[in-house]
């Protein structure tokens, strides 16, 4: 038997076809593949149903060149250990920490084995949140600064510990977990089809990407093919979300450098974009927009014309504002060379999405693992160089233009005469999914790739649900970016990364 099974994004596979290999071999294989350029998408443990004392570890790697996903598993005793891969392949570091937190299986030799999010009911593996083992710094002119969990702005909670030498940040330790709501546990309970509302709130700024991922997984497990019109609505929704959040990010960067024209100009443009989402689905954040195997909302000709009109307005105004913003000496002086992440660092740490693109890594699952309408509308990743705050801002600006283009193309393909198809929200009766199957789905949200993996039991109910938000991969990038920067640059660096706290904490 092969060591891995190869599937496509969103393609379901019977559990019996997924190889189960010895743990040492799995670790060797993961290391070998990551060194050869594959990316870890999922790596988690779940209790084996037939045996109380065994944990099944499942690994999913993405091969961006061939657009395939590799899946393999191994069984390991509870409270046993395996040789940590982090020293050789650092991008897997958080997955290993999560495995210890969730299952008690220990990655031996992990250099930074700390709790991930203080998951509910796992205190035996994590200890108490108040006892988090922070790094410390000693010596002349060194000091530590604690920030959070409650921050100065209207923002989610997280705790930051700066280890400083004078004004300069030596290292930043990021401790999260305050947002933990038990999402994965909730997603495992009850009717798999009525989880849209929870998925929509995994990260409220990434509603569309997460709900699409959830819907794509279930549709694959139910063997349902959705209509092209639904695919188009999803693309429009995802790109509107991307534009809106990039505008929030650029507005936030403006605010953090005290450039008020930017803050107010980008801010009001965001209003018209999220109001466009509202015109489609009734929610400025796209809540209700996507449902598995269905769509509640349609786009009629009036709405189509309205969206195009908004895009024209945005196109006109964003050019004027970008020209102002990226030509202002005061702005550039603050953004350039601040918070640099090198290409090598980004690659090693496994950064995704805009945090990869700003460091010249063309990582975009719309291009490498196309899903839905992206099989038809091709996307070229918008990359930039230098990896500083400025590069992150420029990539976001480029992606706004690209998203407008994608929405126009998608609208052209939309045939509103097919709008009469019935509305089906389906969640009434418990529908069973293909029993003993697994599926991995990836959607490129505005931050980058989000991934859901669902494993069904022999009754077709959800046995395990695993969510990986982009921020899970990217938070460590922020710690790298602020090293050797002045501590006062932290808010700017943080805003330019724009990570999700709740997407990480789940």
């Amino acid at each position: 038997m092969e060591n891995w099974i190869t599937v496509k994004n969103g393609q379901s596979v019977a559990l019996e076809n997924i190889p189960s290999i010895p743990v040492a071999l799995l670790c060797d294989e993961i290391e070998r593949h990551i060194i050869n350029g594959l990316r870890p998408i999922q790596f988690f443990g779940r209790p084996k149903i037939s045996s109380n004392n065994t944990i099944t570890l499942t690994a999913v790697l993405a091969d961006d060149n061939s657009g395939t996903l590799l899946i393999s598993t191994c069984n390991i005793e509870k409270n046993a250990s395996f040789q940590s891969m982090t020293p050789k392949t650092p991008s897997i570091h958080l997955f290993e920490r999560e495995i210890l937190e969730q299952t008690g299986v220990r990655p031996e030799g992990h250099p930074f084995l700390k709790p991930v999010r203080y998951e509910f009911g796992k205190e035996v593996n994590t200890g108490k949140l108040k006892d988090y083992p922070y790094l410390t710094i000693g010596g002349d002119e060194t000091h530590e600064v604690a920030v959070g969990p409650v921050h100065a702005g209207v923002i989610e909670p997280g705790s930051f510990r700066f280890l400083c030498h004078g004004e300069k940040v030596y290292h930043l330790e990021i401790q999260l977990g305050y947002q933990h709501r038990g999402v994965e546990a909730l997603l495992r309970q009850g009717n798999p089809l009525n989880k849209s509302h929870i998925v929509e709130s995994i990260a409220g700024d990434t509603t569309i990407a997460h709900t699409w991922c959830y819907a794509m997984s279930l549709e694959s497990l139910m063997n349902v093919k959705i209509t092209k019109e639904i695919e188009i609505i999803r693309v429009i929704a995802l790109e509107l979300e991307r534009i809106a959040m990039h505008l929030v990010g650029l507005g936030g960067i403006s605010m953090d450098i005290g450039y008020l024209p930017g803050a107010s100009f980008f801010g009001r443009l965001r209003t018209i974009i999220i109001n466009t989402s509202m015109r489609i689905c009734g929610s400025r954040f796209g809540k209700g927009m996507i449902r598995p195997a269905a769509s509640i909302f349609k786009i009629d000709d009036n709405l189509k014309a309205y969206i195009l009109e908004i895009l024209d307005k945005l196109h006109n105004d964003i050019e004027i504002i970008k020209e102002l913003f990226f030509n202002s000496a005061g702005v550039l002086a603050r953004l350039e060379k601040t918070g640099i992440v090198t290409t090598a660092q980004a690659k090693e740490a496994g950064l995704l999405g805009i945090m990869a693109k700003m460091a010249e890594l063309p990582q975009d699952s719309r291009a490498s693992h196309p899903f839905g309408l992206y099989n038809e509308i091709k996307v070229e990743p918008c990359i930039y160089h230098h990896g500083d705050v400025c590069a992150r801002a420029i990539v976001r600006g480029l992606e706004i233009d690209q998203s407008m283009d994608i929405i126009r193309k998608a609208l052209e393909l939309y045939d509103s005469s097919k709008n009469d198809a019935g509305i089906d929200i389906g969640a009434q009766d418990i529908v069973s999914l293909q029993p003993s199957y697994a599926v991995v789905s990836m959607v490129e949200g505005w931050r980058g790739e989000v991934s859901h993996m669902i494993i069904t039991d022999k009754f077709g109910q959800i046995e395990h649900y695993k969510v990986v938000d982009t921020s899970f991969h990217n938070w460590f990038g922020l710690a790298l970016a602020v090293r050797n920067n002045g501590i006062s640059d932290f808010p700017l660096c943080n805003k330019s990364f724009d990570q999700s706290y709740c997407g990480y904490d789940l």
Partner: protein
Amino acid sequence: MIYLIRARINQGYQSIPDVTKVALPAPFRGLPEIMDIPCSDGCSACLKICPTAAINLKPFSIDLKRCILCPDCEIICPVNKIKFTQDINLSSTDERLMLISSSTKTPIIIPDKKITSIFKRSLKLRSISAAGCNACELELNACSNVNFDMGRFGIEFVASPRHADGVVITGPISANMAYAAMETIKATPDPKIIILSGTCAMSGGPFYQSKALSRDFLKSLKIDLYIGGCPPHPLTFINALLKYLERS
């Protein structure tokens, strides 16, 4: 400079002149209206489909503390008993008034004289996100943008609880955040108001069945204002405060 002038002219005047008189377009879902028509015999489709247990059948009511304004019940109902209107008024000073039925059409805000006498023209708020998904937080931020411009009413978010006249809690309140949330409330000097903004803060929202929440400490607090919505629209939030402060 020329770029700035051009952008400023292009920006024009963006503020909503009168936030109390804005009509939002369909399909925005605001206050649900419950028609005075009987349900089909034995039908409980809405009850089954509601993701947050917001619906009571006898007598028929929707709890705005629980409702996330998803369209599911409206679509599933065979007799069209429920209709989401575009009304943005989803707030009350009393949690019992958040129950909407065919007789109680809208929640009511009853201003507190002691509060209005102090804070009517200047209210500084501290936000506490306790496991909020960032939708509520983004909308609270949007309240202060150029469109909604809450600052013109003297209402602002401040950086420290020490500077605040009240706190706005968003999110379902995770167990991991409960201690920090309580400490922040304690650090806010009296007299202060406590606002629960969004369905999650009021009831746990879609997470109400999660064991990872810790909402008990809310029982020891006097909640001054309940603001509905998932997330509350900036107009919902601003109008609730304006009514509470007797500004409209």
